[in-house]
């Protein structure tokens, strides 16, 4: 495993938890209102994406 992939592990883990406990669990309820309020949690995937971008762009440099 590369150093950068290793550095990204907690971010992947956090994103996986958000995807399971928030997104998938909201979908499973079939309650559209829960999906609508999902926007309040957008900082999570946004921060994860920025973190992954920083980690992997540094690898290319």
């Amino acid at each position, binding site marked *: 495993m590369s150093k950068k992939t290793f550095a990204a592990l907690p971010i992947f883990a956090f994103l996986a*938890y958000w995807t399971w406990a928030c997104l998938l*669990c909201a979908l499973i309820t079939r309650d559209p209102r829960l999906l609508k309020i999902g926007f309040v*949690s957008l900082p999570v995937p946004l921060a994860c994406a920025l*973190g992954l971008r920083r980690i992997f762009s540094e690898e290319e440099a």
Partner: protein
Amino acid sequence: MDAALPAEEKNVSLAIGIFMAAVIAASTVLHHLFPQVLSVPPNDGVNFSGYLQMFLLDLVPIGIGAVCFYHALGKYGRYGAMMFLGGSFFFTGLAENVWVLLGRYHLISAFSSQLKDVSGTYYFTRGFFWWGEIPAVICLSWFFIAYACVHIADVLLPRLSIWVKAALGGFLALSLDLWLDPVQVHPYWQSWKWISNESIKLFSIPLSNFAGWFLVIGLFAVAFDRLPRITARWGVRKGSGLFFLLLIALKAAVLTLLMVYGVIAMKYVVPPVNFTLWGV
């Protein structure tokens, strides 16, 4: 002295592991086999509350926690990883147990007569492994949420102080829970149940819950950042003990702060308000 440090670190790590395993084993037996001891509410009508279903659902956070623990082992070594795991488990587990049991036994009013009308706090329904009256995977989730949030803050703001990183980590955890809580208390899941009549709610969840998420993650990040300095000054064994005492002090401070907020809110926010969107 230097040669003794790894041995001490090993002993402290082992002690934390044994303590966690013992508490989880005892709590799990107590919760499932002797529910009357801690007045465990029945799980009537709660989906996926069979033993096999609860065990399988527990595997999701256990897997995610294992990934973060593996990373912590590589980044901090065995002692640092165990202190993060044990510290976050202990800090959040103690905090949540206090809240759950204060509500269950109607002890909130002991803090102030202003809180005499508080109906309770909350409790968890589903979980195979337990830590007191908290599912062990909830404590494990606190571990990897704290770990990942602080790590992301560290990646995004590497040159800023721990206070800024802790604030960003707390904000990310808060942002997660803004969606997590309404989803998990939905009648389909009922992973935990709020029985609080707190004055201010957001998405039908007490506002103090969100404040708690921010404070718990942020303060733990700051406390863990202080650990190397504490052990450098006091030694590994004594420093580890002081670290856990620091966590208890922070827990007491958060509890006091939220109680004061509760007293003020109950007195001045009448009638109670609930900020909802689309009825959630």
